């Protein structure tokens, strides 16, 4: 469906704050910027704009040239339709990043930042890096002068996130590391305001997390686990390690859609039916017959789509108090 002719983007720009892409707020799209090519809801592609390149999507081709000098948010014509050129944000990036692993999605990512008390200047350690969905949010959150140490056991993934951070103007606040935090510990000690774990056996990393956290400032530990068995062992390990306020939260988002309310009287139904008989199994957009008069056409909400994510994982969080 998506074919991009440029996979190598060795452009070296964008290392400073206020630079391009994720943090910058320039009026116009420049070469080297990351642009989210938004086709439709749920269908968008990130590209790094480079003259001579083009992107081919299901509904047409687009030459990067056409984007340069355009205002962010512009509608741009492709060979067979149009797209919108959006400024990259952490939320959009999560929705279209190149997936190398299971990733954390926006509802969890945003809550994790709050559970870690992330703010400008925070020092945060994360493992594993995965595809960098959370890593981007953390990096943007600790700007201008905090730091994110992101650990993964896989060198390929680490190198990829390093390149992405460079492209996105986030290198100066990030350090990707190939390191198994369960075995080798974290890259820094007595330094962090927050530690985040998304590893198969988080309980093995809890003691190392204690070492990573700043002693004088204290800090927060957050762990994400899909299964309750992991939660149980991790919570015990946290209590054992001296954390307080150990709490386990689950959130389940629900996407809603605004639709016209179906409303007819019994008489109307008796006369005309409910419009189902004619077109069985044809989805939501059926018109409910109500005998000509379109009386109080209210709206209502439905959950849509009908099947949605109902679980991603449990978030266990805890506080390490300042230690003298």
């Amino acid at each position: 469906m998506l074919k991009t002719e440029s996979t190598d983007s060795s452009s070296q720009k964008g290392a400073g704050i206020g630079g391009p892409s994720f943090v910058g707020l320039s009026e116009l799209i420049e070469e080297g910027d990351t642009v989210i090519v938004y086709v439709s809801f749920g269908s968008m592609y990130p590209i790094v704009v480079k003259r001579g390149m083009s992107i081919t999507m299901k509904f047409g081709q687009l030459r990067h040239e056409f984007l340069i000098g355009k205002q962010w948010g512009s509608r741009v014509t492709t060979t067979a339709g149009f797209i919108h050129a959006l400024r990259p944000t952490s939320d959009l990036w999560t929705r279209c990043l190149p997936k190398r692993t299971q990733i954390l999605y926006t509802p969890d990512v945003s809550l994790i930042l709050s559970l870690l008390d992330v703010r400008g200047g925070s020092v945060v350690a994360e493992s594993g890096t995965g595809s960098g969905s959370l890593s981007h949010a953390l990096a943007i959150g600790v700007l201008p002068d905090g730091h994110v140490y992101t650990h993964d056991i896989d060198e390929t993934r680490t190198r990829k996130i390093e390149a992405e951070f460079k492209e996105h103007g986030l290198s100066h606040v990030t350090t990707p590391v190939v390191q198994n935090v369960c075995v080798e510990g974290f890259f820094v000690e007595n330094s962090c305001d927050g530690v985040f774990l998304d590893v198969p056996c988080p309980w093995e990393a809890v003691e190392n997390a204690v070492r990573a956290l700043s002693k004088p400032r204290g800090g927060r530990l957050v762990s994400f686990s899909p299964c309750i068995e992991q939660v149980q062992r991790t919570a015990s390990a946290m209590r054992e390690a001296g954390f307080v306020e150990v709490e386990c939260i689950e959130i389940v988002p629900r996407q809603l859609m605004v639709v016209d309310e179906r409303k007819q009287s019994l008489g109307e139904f008796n006369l005309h039916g409910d419009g189902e008989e004619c077109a069985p199994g044809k989805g939501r957009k059926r018109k409910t017959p109500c005998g000509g008069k379109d009386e109080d056409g209210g709206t209502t909400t439905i959950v849509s789509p009908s099947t949605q994510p109902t679980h991603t994982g449990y978030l266990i969080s805890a506080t390490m108090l300042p230690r003298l």
Partner: protein
Amino acid sequence: MTTIESGTSLESAAPLDASMPVITEGCYAVVRKVGGEHQRVVRLTANSNVLVEKLRFEAESAFGHPFGLFEVIGKRLVPATVEDLRKRDGGDIDMAAVDAENIGVCGNENGEVIAPSAIEAETRQALTEEQISEMKKGEGVSAKDVVSKLVSGSASFASRTSHAKNKYIRRKTKKHQDRVLILKPTIRLLCEAYLRKDHDRAGCLRIDQLSLMLHQGAVHIGRKVLVFDQVLGLITSAVTERLAGAGSCIHLHRGTVAQSIPCFNSMEFSPEILSAFYPVRIDCILNGFQQPAEEGAEKDVKMETEEVENEADESPTEKLSQQQPVQHGGDGRRRNDPEWAAVAAQKKAERLQREAAGLAAIEQGLDTILIGSRSVDPCSLLSLLYSKLRPSGNVVVYSPTIQHCMRAQQWLRERGAIHVVLSDQMYRVQQVLPSRTHPLMSQMVVGGYVLAAIKVIGTPEKKE
């Protein structure tokens, strides 16, 4: 079913009820692949094939066997027992409520992270899809055989952790599963099947909310229950079953005969149970609870014969007059056939008589009004029916549209109804597997709202 006298334990007694339910030609069944995610409601007719999640078998091969577990071997069903399969193949045969996509990165028992290379290697499979398909066509090759071939064909299997091995086998077994459950329809099974098939037409009514309606509506034997059912007959079926032949399920319907209630038909109620079922035309309700005068015999007879032709399978009342299933006329029968017209006329007379009895029951006073609405404003029903509800009687309104329930609540409050409760509920399936217990990652999340209230008397109506 038989009641056992209390007082003694019945160790090694003979089966109390020898009527083990048996699959017969033309019967309805709920078919589900073992560990599969979908269930289908099918009518098992001779010469028909049943397809469920890519597994196909000949319906005829099930006839005469008790409902239960089967293996599909070369499109034929072979009865199986859980015990035998477990002895033969080991492990648990049940894999329902397992996330299909729950793959991702995972650790081994020692908590070590598995390098992604191990996961990517999963695709390094010596067997091609065609070869697998070929294997399965051959008779006698079970899913277990396919999976063990897949395991030996996997380049990376040996290098995996045992946790990952377990997962791989589970997933592959599920995919190539050749076991099927053929179950006698129950309200529970039908509710799930129709919700999955078309949640919109089923009004998003889940089994938990249907159950709540019955319970808050105090539906039990002897009660006169009026049902407006825009949800494929789910409510009508459940009420009819609960009445157990005593009381009245007064079912309002459009047109001449009850229609769009496939669930009701699939239940294949016995004549005894059906004796409490009273279909009544909405026409009668709108006509002051009177059967409307005949408009034109010509048109009516035409409709009646059309009904006999087209709605034969759909008409649930026919069993009332005959113990044996009716042999429906083939396509060859002509509308003008006088014998056919006589049948139609008799059916009509029976139908009208039944309807009159239903209307009489309404006049005696209803114990419960149950409304399961999709498009019809419940207030439009309540304004006609509420006066027929006996004091201390229950009204329950279900709708996937909150506004329906909000208006109905206001309507009922204004008329002094008490114990007014509006609720929705979350419904979530948990995967329960060793070290992998969590709610399913993705599920159907539709549902509706249930409004319950009790009518009382002696309360001055509130001014609005």
